[in-house]
């Protein structure tokens, strides 16, 4: 809940209108700071000049006293009438005695003013001093800096007052606009997500009342999606046409070859040739069929028929199908399953075929007698389906290559197969949001299908 709130706040803060609002606030703040700052500096300067003039006038009043004694009387009279928090008077007589409402001492840095013992407290903000030698001693007058401090506070308050409405209005308007835009951006994002998942019929809802940038982006997204959909449809149509136009002659060829074979006496050389021709034609059909199927799977169209599939049941079924064939070759085909079903959302037929392809690869590319292990387990919230053999394995640098269509290892050129089996498995994995990876079984190969945790990814 908190994380969600933080996420949505982060999204609002990261939105364009919000960033513009923050930028506006910054500009207003800088302008106010500069104008108010200049005004403050000027006012402060004149306030200090007034203080200086005031002090000088007072100082002149004391010059009538001719002797230290007279000056002391004069100073203590003035000092008694004044609050040392506002103004201090201190006369340091030639003998070092201090008269006034504050104690003062000359230091190398200037004057140090401190409260008289038993006297009233001094100003917290320091003093603006005037020092003169008089009647053999030193007379120190000091005006409290409190008014200047108050002036600073007043200006800070002014700054805050002038900024507050700007900040509130800018950020508020930004948030409202951002919220409104966010719903529409979310809509566009959702449509783009659907499109990238292969749902090419997804469109941003049109809003004829709006003609702004987001509306234009929506129109462009829709245009792009329509183009993509048309291209995919064209590709599908071309595939279907090619399939039809090529498969029909292949059908006729197979038909004629079967016919020919029927007319030839068994065990003759001609019959063997006809059978080889039939096998070649069937091989061509197989490659053709597999290529079309991979293209179709990669197109994502098969997602429409997705349903919950129990991988444990699929693994058990395929293992049952292949076990006798493996045993004929002196292999043991073992299968280890988790307790209970391991459900993924997908296409049962394709998943079964993917597992069958992995087992057939193991049967074909490893020496007879080598065991094959099928393992299904839950791992890190996801599901892992593995086929492991004890054959020569695939060198690490070749593992990426063998997933490519029609690629075959040098040593496999003589074994049957069309080089499309693993490509089909990889395409099926991709369709299900799963990953096909190849690992070393030391010795042998592990082909691993890792299905992501949760059902939402594959199903969306």
């Amino acid at each position: 809940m908190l994380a969600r709130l933080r996420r949505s706040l982060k999204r609002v803060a990261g939105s364009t209108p919000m960033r513009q609002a923050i930028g506006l606030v910054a500009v207003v703040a800088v302008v106010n700071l500069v104008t108010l700052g200049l005004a403050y500096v000027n006012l402060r300067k004149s306030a200090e000049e007034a203080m200086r003039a005031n002090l000088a006038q007072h100082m002149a009043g004391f010059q009538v006293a001719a002797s230290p004694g007279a000056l002391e009387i004069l100073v203590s009279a003035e000092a008694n009438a004044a609050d040392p928090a506002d103004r201090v008077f201190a006369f340091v007589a030639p003998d070092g005695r201090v008269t006034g409402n504050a104690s003062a001492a000359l230091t190398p840095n200037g004057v140090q003013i401190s409260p008289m013992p038993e006297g009233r407290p001094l100003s917290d903000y320091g003093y603006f001093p005037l020092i003169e030698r008089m009647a053999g001693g030193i007379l120190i007058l000091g005006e409290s800096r409190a008014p200047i401090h108050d002036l600073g506070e007043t200006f800070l308050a002014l700054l805050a007052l002038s900024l507050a409405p700007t900040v509130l209005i800018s950020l508020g308007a930004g948030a409202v606009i951002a919220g409104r835009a966010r719903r529409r951006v979310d809509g566009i994002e959702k449509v783009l997500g659907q499109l990238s998942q292969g749902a090419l019929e997804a469109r941003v809802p049109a809003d004829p009342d709006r003609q702004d940038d987001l509306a234009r982006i929506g129109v462009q997204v829709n245009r792009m999606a329509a183009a993509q959909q048309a291209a995919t449809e064209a590709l599908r149509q071309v595939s279907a046409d090619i399939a039809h136009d090529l498969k029909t002659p292949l059908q006729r060829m197979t038909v004629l070859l079967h016919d020919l074979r029927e007319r030839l006496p068994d065990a003759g050389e001609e019959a063997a040739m006809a059978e080889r021709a039939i096998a070649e034609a069937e091989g061509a059909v197989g490659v053709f069929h597999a290529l079309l199927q991979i293209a179709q799977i990669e197109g994502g169209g098969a997602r429409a028929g997705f349903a919950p599939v129990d991988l444990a049941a699929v693994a058990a079924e395929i293992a049952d199908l292949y076990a006798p064939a493996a045993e004929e070759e002196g292999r043991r085909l073992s299968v280890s399953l988790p307790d209970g079903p391991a459900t993924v959302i997908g296409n049962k037929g394709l998943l079964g075929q993917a597992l069958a392809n992995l087992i057939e690869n193991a049967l074909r590319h490893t020496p007879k007698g080598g065991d094959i292990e099928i393992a299904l387990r839950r791992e890190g919230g996801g599901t892992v389906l593995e086929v492991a053999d004890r054959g020569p394995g695939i060198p690490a640098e070749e593992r990426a290559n063998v997933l490519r269509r029609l690629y075959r290892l040098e040593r496999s050129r003589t074994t049957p197969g069309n080089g499309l089996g693993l490509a089909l498995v990889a395409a099926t994995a991709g369709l299900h949001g799963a990953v096909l990876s190849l690992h070393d079984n030391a010795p042998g190969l592990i082909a691993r299908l890792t299905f992501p945790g949760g059902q939402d990814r594959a199903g969306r």
Partner: protein
Amino acid sequence: MTTLPVRIDAAETTKGAMKLLLIEDDPTTAAYIVKGLREEGHVVDHLADGRDGMVQAMAGGYDVLIVDRMLPGIDGLSLIRALRSAKVTVPAIFLTAIGGVDDRIEGLQAGGDDYLVKPFAFGELSARIAVLARRAAQPVAETVLTAGDLSMDLIARRVTRGGKTIDLLPREFALLEHLLRRKGRVQTRTMLLESVWDLSFDPQTNVVETHVSRLRAKVDKPFDRELIQTVRGAGYKIEG
């Protein structure tokens, strides 16, 4: 359905005096299918246009329809859908050049009874047509299946031959049951894969052959006569 018993007789006695309708626009394929089916003794009507085919199929009287999916006029899927919504239940098999991932399911959902991807061997089509005709004509629930001296008790799940009990694994039992239920008719490898294992892809390994040879080792090897026969280039059958 008073014609039902007659059809059973026809199918069983002459092994195929069926009336078939082929709707296929490719002349070579059509000629080949028509020729092959006529040689087997069936009566075959052929039309190349989807619309004409639908009208003809509505008229009725056919045992099985053979329908190409891509047709001029009206495509095969729509044709079968239209027939089914008009309560025409004659079994239909689709022929297709596409063979896509979900095409088979699509075809069956549209109301088709079987699905065959081109190119196919004639034996495959012939075997499937025989199964469809029989399926439509025989809704009888049997509890004991027999062939020669072999008998399968479906309730006790027990198989005996010549008085001796034969122990079968569940999958072997299912395979034998499938063949017994279609006694006298050829079952191809792909048909067995589809019905016994519910798989519709073409394995590159002889998996079905191995299963059949295991079954044979138990059912036929200890006895004189072979019940499960190999039909070259087509599949397997148990003779009645």
